């Protein structure tokens, strides 16, 4: 059984029909990616899973439980953590305070401390800047902080929304290798990306979205090799 099963959801922004019956399945331990152009509904899908948006119809099953329409904080409690588009770190707070907020629902002080050390081990640059205000970090560092913050809730599945946005190619590579690392230590990942090439290179499975619908899905390697995808999303 899939860990996360988005089943035929329809989401509206007022009168705009943003998601027209999207279905996505993520199995435990996988990296699954949603690719597609701007406005295809990738972020909307993630935001609906996180509970920031409520689907009008359809189900979202997480480990056998329907979470569609649940309050966002209860979804985090179940083990779904999102790294939002544009990082959205708390700019006026220190790196440490941001990580503390990531562990907001936990009270196991010792374990939180251990997880913070784990985050600092994974992102040594954050360790150096732990007392600094998040707003003064570079884009790449903010992305790392947003990821570290999400990991502090000990998610079972991590939702990543455009982690490569606005970053230099070298940093993009670094971020993706960290994503792969996080996955290898047991966290399932649902990744939204415009950088289809990078996303397909680390994913097991991919869904291609276009104007609120899934138009293609399948094995990431196969999609990366397909003529249609190469033309539309990989620049030839």
């Amino acid at each position, binding site marked *: 059984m899939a860990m996360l099963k988005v089943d035929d959801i329809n989401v509206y922004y007022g009168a705009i029909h943003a998601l027209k019956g999207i279905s996505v399945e993520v199995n435990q331990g996988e990296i699954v990616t949603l690719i597609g152009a701007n406005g295809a509904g990738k972020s909307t899908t993630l935001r609906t899973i996180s509970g*920031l948006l409520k689907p009008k119809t359809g189900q979202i099953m997480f480990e056998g439980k329907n979470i569609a329409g649940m309050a966002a904080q209860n979804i985090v409690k179940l083990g779904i*953590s999102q790294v*939002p588009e544009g990082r*959205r*770190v708390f700019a006026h*707070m220190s790196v440490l305070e941001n990580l503390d907020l990531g562990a*907001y629902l936990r009270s196991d002080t010792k374990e939180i401390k251990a997880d913070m050390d784990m985050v600092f081990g994974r992102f040594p640059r954050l360790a150096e800047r732990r007392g600094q205000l998040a707003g003064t970090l570079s884009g790449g560092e903010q992305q790392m902080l947003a990821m570290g913050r999400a990991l502090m*809730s000990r998610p079972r599945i991590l939702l990543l929304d455009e982690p490569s946005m606005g970053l230099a190619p070298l940093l993009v590579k670094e971020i993706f290798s960290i994503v792969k690392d996080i996955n290898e230590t047991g966290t399932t990942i649902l990744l939204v990306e415009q950088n289809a090439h990078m996303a397909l290179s680390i994913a097991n499975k991919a869904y291609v979205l276009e104007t609120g619908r899934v138009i293609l899905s399948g094995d990431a390697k196969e999609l990366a090799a397909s003529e249609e995808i190469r033309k539309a999303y990989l620049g030839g």
Partner: protein
Amino acid sequence: MDSSSLIVQFGQQLINGISLGSIYALIALGYTMIYGIIRLINFAHGDIYMVGAYAGFFATTMFKFSFIPALIFSMAAAGVIGMVIERVAYRPLRNAPKIAILITAIGVSLFLEYGGMLLVSPQPRTFPVLFESEVYNIGGMVINSQQVVILVVSLLLMVILTYVVNKTKMGKAMRAVSFDTEAAQLMGIDVDKVISFTFGIGSALAAAAGVLVGIYYNSIDPLMGIMPGLKAFVAAVLGGIGSLPGAMLGGTILGIIEALVSGFWSSTFRDAVAFAILIIILLWKPAGLLGKNIREKV
């Protein structure tokens, strides 16, 4: 007027201004916190201060509470009322256009004012004397024990508030929600609970101001919140709306300016000067003295 009596007079108005200003600051803190968290100018906030004064009045006259228990009772009662108002009047409109919730706030304000008249009668009441008034004379300047109590209580409350906001988990959650509500939700923060808590704290501070004013001026009435509410709003804007130190600074400055205007010019112009400050600030530095650049959410 020779120069030494001028200095004494100035010092005297400074003392009066700081005690008046700390009242404004306590009310302004609630304005600024509530604005910070849901971007609402809560026009009913001045009336919460009135409710707090009445809660203190009944605590001392009916239940025979002494000063500190009456203050705590009043803060708790107003805190609960503030939370109920948020739950009943504002929460259903959270995603409605801003103007709807603003008009609702004016409605709540009128409801408290005229509902208050119905409940406790429009007649002003004499606030009981809670402790013996002593007058201290320092080099010609007069300071009484009420002013000392106002100053000590306000300072203490501001220190506690600063600690809660900066050091506690709930305070961190408040700052997170205020900065980016959605990102806060993604941390697992229950935004409704944080907003409710903010209304509770803000209302409790206004209630403390109400009790302190009752002690100072001895007289309370159901419309007593209108003017101080507006003045505290000016103070919050002056300091930079959304900023806690700004509210404290703005309140103090406004109090001092008002006292100086009353002392050296005429108390007739006191209110005019206060609102002239609002206009000048809005023209010259709309973000306020300690305000950050306003970043509208898109």
